[in-house]
């Protein structure tokens, strides 16, 4: 499938869909052309990449093993993973209180504390995103998308922290993480194991 030739517009649309996992709504003309090429599946109002589409994007984004910037990217990725853990823990705390009950967002003190801690995470990911973007220009949009989610959250809509159905902070972060994994060619499982080691302080 890697011998498929796509226009720039098609490539962007396919990468976006693979990183996001799905899209809802009617297929655009570009998406329809990708569906015709067998790279996208249209299921009612849902668009999803086919395995061939996912593989194509994997080949497109994946950095060659001998790429000069790989070492720098991996070093930054090692700094990213502990912050990634913090973000997921924070989203979990946003949904479930420490005693296991569902956070119904009626405790202003609890929610304000989580929102406050999100600033630490956002501060920590800022310099990392800057590094990533120096080596992978396509990562450039994430800073603005994360900031947009934060602003909407601060406008008073709690969904913008962790709702999976909108471009919430967690959703954008998950896309960012997915794009990094596709770029360095790492599986979810390897990623989880590395993160565990880094968080435990055992990895270099």
């Amino acid at each position, binding site marked *: 499938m890697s011998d498929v030739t796509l226009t720039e517009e098609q490539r962007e649309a396919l990468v976006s869909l*693979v990183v996001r*996992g799905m899209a809802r709504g009617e297929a655009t003309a570009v998406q329809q052309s990708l569906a015709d090429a067998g790279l996208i599946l249209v299921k009612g109002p849902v668009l999803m990449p086919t395995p061939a589409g996912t593989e194509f994007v994997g080949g497109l984004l994946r950095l060659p093993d001998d790429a000069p910037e790989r070492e720098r990217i991996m070093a930054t990725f090692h700094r990213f993973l502990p912050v990634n853990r913090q973000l997921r823990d924070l989203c979990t705390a946003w949904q479930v209180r420490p005693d*296991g009950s*569902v956070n119904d967002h009626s405790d*202003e*003190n609890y929610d304000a504390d989580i*929102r*406050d801690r999100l600033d630490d995470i956002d501060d920590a990911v800022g310099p990392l995103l800057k590094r990533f973007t120096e080596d992978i220009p396509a990562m450039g949009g994430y800073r603005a998308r994360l900031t947009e989610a934060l602003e909407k959250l*601060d406008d008073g809509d709690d969904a913008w922290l962790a709702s999976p159905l909108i471009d919430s902070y967690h959703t954008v972060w998950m896309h960012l993480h997915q794009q990094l994994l596709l770029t360095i060619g790492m599986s*979810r499982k390897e990623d989880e194991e590395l993160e565990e080691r880094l968080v435990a302080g055992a990895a270099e």
Partner: protein
Amino acid sequence: MSPSSWAPPIDDVGLVPFGKGFERGLDSRSLCTRGVQLETLAGLGLPVGAGLTIPVPNVPGFTSPDRAKAAMNLLEGIAGRAISSTTESGGLVLLRLSASAPVEAAGLPPDLVCLGLKRSVIPEGLGAQARADLAAAWWKSAAFIAEHALGVPSDELGSLDIDYPDALERLEPFRRLCEEQGSAPFPTKRSQQVAAGAKAMIERWNSPRAARARKKQNLPADLPLALHLETVVVTEHDDEGHGYATSRNMETGGFEPNGSFRHGFRLSGERQMSGHPLDRLPGGVEMLTGVLAELEGRLRSAITVDFEYGPDGLVLVGLEELRRPNARVATSLAVDLVIRGITGEADAVASTDPVHVVELLHPQPKLTGNEVTLATGLGASPGAAVGHLALDSETAVEMAEAGRPVILVMSETTPGDLPGMMAAAGILTANGGSASHAAVVARGMGRPAICGATSLRLDAEARTLASGEHVLAEGDLISIDGATGVAYVGELAIERPSASPSLTTLLGWADDARRLGIRANADNGADASAAVDNGAEGIGLCRTEHMFLGDRLPFVRAVILSHDGDAEEKALAALADAQREDFRELLRAMGDKPVTVRLLDAPMHEFLPSSADELQDEHQARMLEHLHEENPMLGVRGVRLALIHEGLYPAQVEGLFNAWVDVVQADEARPQLEIMIPLVSIPDELVMALRLIRRVNQEVASRTGLVIPFSIGTMVETPRAALMADRLAQWAEFLSFGTNDLTQLTYGFSRDDVERRMLGTYLEKGLLTASPFAELDPDGVGALMEVAVAKARSVRPDIKLGICGEHGGDPRSIEVCERIGLDYVSASPSRIPVARLAAAHARAGVAS
């Protein structure tokens, strides 16, 4: 220098050693929450860590190194140790500066740990882990001071952190960065560091970030801070460490101290949850258990304490009252406090939020002991689900499209699996933790999920799932419990659990305290049994609409559309027989309790064919056209349908009376029948219905030789019925407010349309504070009800008055019902415990 050579503490008036604040007449306004916690602990004679509070009025002056020096001197006296000295076990004594506000507040600056460090004071023998921890903790404090006290840009500090992973190598560039971009070099003297730390905390508390946090909590913008200075011993000795202990088991709610501890020192103010279990704590947990029991009794709250331990034993360094414990903890604690004689039953009932109780009754798989466990993982998103196994996202979507419930099972999930997760009823993954992206997404979608069930082996080629000895094929049924993290082979029944012993006790006390009767809305035997199990004293509403659907629909259509008298009569007889079965099951479950059966209320159009294909002949087609209604909900509905089709209500009550005879003759039950006529607005509608019912009652009685007692009542669903309650009460022995319709007709709201289109706007603009369909409107609908209550009782003082809409299970609405003097509320079976507790609260509220 040995501790004994230190002079007695210099007790500066502006510095308050932990435990000395209350005796000086200080309170939370100056000591703030952390100061009060330590006062509380010390006041109970418990050992507390060495530390002091800089009270609110003295905080601004604390940015002076002289004041910081005085505090350090005092602290050295309290601790009996010099700052920067080495302990007997080889640890290094440093400082921790923390902040708190007069009330619980988010947005506080972080603890600054390891202040007072100079490279020259690090003991030779300090181990590698302690050095690494020291470096990490010091960097956090130093970077915070640099950013907030010296104005160094945070991005520059972040870059330094990335560029120099080794903390020692970072020191020199950090020093240069502060000199070049900060307002002053980074302070090297200990007292300067403490003073700069205080300044950084104050600056951060005044920053937009902290202001936003205060605003989000509706706290005053000028809420002040107190600071707290304590010693910290940097160590990795096996006998020295820190931890936390919580008084309650969060799963069961019972008193069962649990927590964890770690060797070494506390790196930050945030509690570290992972560590060794408490039963391995050097010195044992007896003291902690006693402390937690004592604190629970004093503070009447579930408690968490933070502690440090060392060669000299255990000291407490923090205290937290669980402000919002989960329902299991809340009910168990409330009952325990009564048993210990600390509080009374009324306190226990008052301290339990009725809505909270719902949490305890979430559906879960019914376990019989015979179920087969497929795999165990981490309960990542609560709830239970049963479905067919799908091994990838696409299959899950296809199966769901075909109308089959699906459990999506994957090794791990990626964003590409979102469509499958959305389509699935539940999610099960082999990898990932309860904080994985998949778990966050599952919770966000409200899907039950188990993550990290590591025994699962997926075979994408063979389309099988293996775990231990089990091998399942795609499409096989499995069940998952997202609360416990257990997946089962096959289909398990999902049901609501019965009340825990604590909840049962508490509800018993609530029953003693309430005046309102609690009945259930139940339409079949299973619901009726569940309602009785939950404590319902009768059925307040048995809807009969469902008895006319499914395979009985043709009979109803025959009645409505028929032009053949014989056919209509046969159809009515069939309906009466079918309902006899339905009612028998329901009555059997209720013993001798009252059962209110509402005769058919649904609008006629619900029974009519929706397409021409379903019509039997041209006559039916003509009838259908003739029967078309513009607004069926206000058309031929309730008693009106029975006036047009006079055989309908007699057929229903014939089924009901026969069923009553069946269960009484079988000696199974002797329920009190109450027959309720819906949508009455003209008193004579009730009289005509009553006449039909009496005729059938006499017919069945003379046929069976049994007198079948029943009472007759009506729903009050229209404003006219409410205003004419005195006239209705001449005939009705009970009235039941149908507050859904009454709300629609009082406001002139069509519920579906208004909830969908208008409610958001109303709430946003502050015109309403809640949906009047969820929370009974006390001013309008409540006022109409009040009029009806007074009028009805003026004619028939012993008339029974109740409510049977959704409001019957809502605590605020129950308050209104108590206030206006209804006799009972009727709620769905699952809301019965909520209603019992809410009725007790409402009674206490009215009494006070």
